[in-house]
């Protein structure tokens, strides 16, 4: 078997970078640690650029288990970007409040490596291991503030529930493997394994498209497998009712890690979710679309209602991110086995909303990190009078929160509009209506935060204006500009996304073409 190692050079470079960062930081203990942070960020930026340039036109496959297509490349760059901004935002925080900087930056790079592999995986074992790589890095990072009991506790709960969810997902995977006899998603690669030896082909028989398994007999096993995989994934993306770890992990984790978890962790899990459900499970869409729909509805409702009661900003953002997961799941529900182009739209809409959400969320957290660097507090009431003390931070937070609420000018409006549109178009009027209503409710709690910043005067002993470090302020400007840009003119981004999701549906398109041809 010929393995084209040049396809996964970025992954190797990332692993190397992590090792180098850890080794260097351990070796040069007398150097100011912030330089390791900035060096890591610079390296991540360079890798992102190089990857984008070198691989954009690639559409290949590494040993059947990793796809290097537009989707992969888009997400590689996306994850590297997330890590870049996280590290920039984390430098001052880590310098003042954390130890073991070598492992801190190294693990961020490792987690990013896990995300990149996860988005590229088109085989269940590889995907599972990538997911664990990502999760393990996060278990450690969440508990990184090792002398802080909150951090220990968040890490412990996250780890135990994460392991539990992995077990659920693995059992589901084993059933899918039992039904279909393979763990490969789809069989685009002509010189790969023999025809019919992939999940999509096997499942296609359910849709009457021809294939290997007995359609009726295998259905119960398949259904249980799908439910368990969805449940396991539900834990990873923190969909209700699998969300219990989320607020604890978010609150316990050091702030930059909360940002990274809410942005990168979620984005990676959704990249996996999307590739798995559109490449492998699409032919069986009728089997799973209803329970993913219910999951989405419950997640939107509960996430928003719980968010209404929070007093801690990190917990608020945890529930807010849960409700965002609901909106993202709407994109999965809009996948349609019978209509490939519509499925591709749904997938593109999901990715667009994901990118918009992540940009917004990192902006919120970058601003909150800057605030925390000064004050060391993270309750919502502590934000009182921020508009007086640091108008730019207040503006950034307000803009980002409006975006999360789906208000115009900002990313959330356009991306939610398109993703709900996809659901409406697939006949899920009720789901779209719930989504719109839920995002209306969310406006209330975002406004409660904005109110604290703008309505009240600063309180407490420290009321002076303060400065934000230059790199952090620069990153924040870029992020807020990105939120505005996606909100006002998402077209270029959408075009890129649309061309990247094409690969996910190649097999489905070929199948439906062959059916039409018969």
């Amino acid at each position, binding site marked *: 078997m010929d393995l084209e190692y040049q396809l996964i050079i970025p992954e190797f470079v990332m692993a190397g970078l992590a090792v180098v960062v850890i080794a260097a930081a351990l070796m040069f203990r007398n150097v100011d640690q912030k330089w390791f942070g900035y060096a890591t960020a610079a390296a991540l930026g360079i890798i992102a650029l190089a990857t984008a340039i070198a691989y954009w036109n690639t559409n290949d496959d590494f040993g059947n288990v990793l796809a290097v297509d537009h989707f992969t490349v888009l997400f590689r760059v996306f994850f590297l970007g997330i890590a870049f901004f996280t590290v920039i935002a984390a430098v001052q925080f880590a310098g003042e409040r954390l130890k073991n900087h070598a492992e801190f930056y190294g693990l961020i790079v490792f987690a990013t490596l896990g995300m990149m592999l996860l988005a590229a995986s088109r085989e269940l074992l590889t995907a599972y291991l990538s997911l664990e790589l990502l999760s393990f890095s996060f278990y450690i990072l969440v508990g990184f503030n090792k002398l802080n009991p909150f951090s220990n506790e968040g890490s412990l709960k996250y780890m135990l529930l994460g392991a539990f969810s992995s077990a659920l997902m693995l059992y589901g995977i084993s059933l899918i493997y039992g039904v279909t006899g393979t763990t490969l998603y789809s069989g685009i690669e002509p010189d790969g394994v023999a025809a019919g030896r992939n999940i999509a082909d096997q499942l296609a028989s359910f849709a009457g498209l021809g294939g290997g398994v007995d359609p009726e007999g295998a259905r119960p096993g398949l259904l249980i497998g799908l439910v368990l995989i969805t449940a396991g994934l539900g834990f990873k993306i923190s969909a209700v009712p699998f969300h219990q770890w989320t607020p604890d992990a978010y609150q316990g984790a050091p702030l930059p890690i909360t940002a990274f978890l809410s942005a990168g962790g979620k984005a990676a899990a959704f990249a996996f979710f999307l590739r798995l459900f559109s490449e492998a499970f699409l032919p069986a869409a009728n089997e799973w679309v209803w329970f993913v729909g219910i999951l989405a509805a419950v997640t939107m409702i509960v996430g928003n209602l719980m968010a209404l009661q929070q007093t801690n900003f990190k917990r608020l953002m945890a529930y807010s991110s849960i409700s965002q997961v609901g909106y993202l799941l709407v994109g999965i529900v809009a996948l349609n086995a019978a209509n490939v*182009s519509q499925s591709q739209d749904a997938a593109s809409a999901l990715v667009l909303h994901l990118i918009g959400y992540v940009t917004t969320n990192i902006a919120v957290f970058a601003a909150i990190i800057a605030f925390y660097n000064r004050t060391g507090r993270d309750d919502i009431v502590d934000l009182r009078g921020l508009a007086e003390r640091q108008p730019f931070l207040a503006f950034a937070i307000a803009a980002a929160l409006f975006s999360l609420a789906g208000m115009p000018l900002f990313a959330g409006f356009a991306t939610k509009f398109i993703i709900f549109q996809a659901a*409406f178009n697939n006949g899920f*009027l009720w789901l779209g209506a719930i989504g719109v209503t839920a995002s209306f409710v969310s*406006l209330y709690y975002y*406004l409660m935060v*904005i109110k604290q910043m703008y*309505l009240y005067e600063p309180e407490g002993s420290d009321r002076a204006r303060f400065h934000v470090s230059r790199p952090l302020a620069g990153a924040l400007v870029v992020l807020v500009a990105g939120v505005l840009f996606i909100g006002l003119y998402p*077209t270029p981004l959408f075009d890129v996304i649309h061309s990247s999701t094409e690969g996910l549906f190649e097999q489905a398109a070929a199948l439906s073409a062959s059916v039409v041809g018969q």
Partner: protein
Amino acid sequence: MDAGEALLLLLLIPGGTMLLTLFVPSRHANVVRWISLIATTATLIDSIWIFAVYDFAEGGYQFDLQYPWIENIAFLGENGISLHLAVDGIAAPLVLLNGLVGFAGVLVSWKITHRVKDFFILFLALFTGVYGVYIGQDLFFWFFAYELAVLPMYLLIVIWGSTNKEYGAMKLTMVLVGGSVLIFVGIFAVFAEAGAGTFDMAVLREVNFGRSFANTFFPFFMIGCGILAGLFPFHTWSPDGHVAAPTAVSMLHAGVLMKLGAFGVIRLGMEILPAGTDFWMPVLLVLGGVAAVYGAISAIHQTDLKFVIGYSSVSHMGFVLMGLGTMNNIGVNGAVLQMFSHGVMTALFFAMVGGLYDQAHTRDIRVFGGLVRKMPLFVIFFGIAGLTSLGLPGLSGFVAEFHIFVGAIDKFPLFAALGILSAALTAIYVLRLMGRAALGPFNPRWESLKEISRWEIAAAIVLIAPIIAMGVWPDPFIDRIAQSVADLPQVEQIGGLFTLSSLTGG
């Protein structure tokens, strides 16, 4: 006519100024003020030009301009979502109205000293959003602009507002955004039902929606937009919001924002889902009539000047909805005229109240008296607004309300009577207000009051000019409106292109 760039300018000038203002250091408050004034002056000139150049003989939508936004989604057709702008004879006067009120709003905001830069940025965002709603021809951008017009209200009220601002702002925002949820769902339903793969209103207007579909989804637009127009019983956000808001925001709020609601009923409801009007318009008529009377009665009981005007806005918007509900050309003409008339009149009201409150620090009408001795210009301007409000012939309010009554008499004589009752009630509270506060015995507590500032005088003059113009020579307005109203589907034609001028032989 196609000079659609003029419409684009309406968005680009204030929008660009917003961006520009972001980069002005906040210590240069005067620079910010002047930039905003220049921008609103430019848009005012542009608005006047559009109003003047609109070819009413030809009618229909003019200044058409379309740029694609998102195209290559399969479920969307070639022009799935596009930046499509155009005005018709109904939107043209409202564009002018927004230009006038926005310009006057900047003038009366001159004395704001707290966080000037932020104020004008948000003010311009609101201003741009309102323009977007009037000239938008694509449901996506229409809704975008609609939300954009609502959203800055929250911050504007919370930061610069007064009396109970926290409550007022939250109530206003949540009620209005709640209404927009209905609109949002309605938009999607229309899109899916049409199956045309586009959000372009010009295309959707041509689609023939079935009666049952239209009957189901018309209320989504009617209630969703109606909430913003102060539709009874969802009107309570409006007085609370008025009272809490700073002067300029109250002006924009009552002057143009509430019109967006009535305008939305025309644009989304009557134009896109005409089949639903038969069933629902009588409901709108009844609710409008109730709001007209209820608003007037409530206004009589109030002692806070802003509450009085807030409830009078509810009452006057009730007239607008009544006019729409008649579904005949005269009534709808009147509704649009009333939108314009009430817009400038109530903006004038709030500008004057703001001028008074800034000196007196109270708006309780019971403590004022004989203000004419100290503030003659204030009393004159306030009086003009009041007389317009009660429908004095020669001022714009008369023209508008007269049309509405004629339209209503033709269809529902009982409700016309209700409307006239409400006009009488209006006379009561306006005259009481004038009599007590302006003319009555002088209260020595107000010895120190001075005349309103020159900025407010300038604003008042800008607003009074169209009131009088429309009162004595309504033809330019009626010509433009009547042609487009006649084009509305399902609107009954009575007496040909009946206008006031044909009645008076003018």
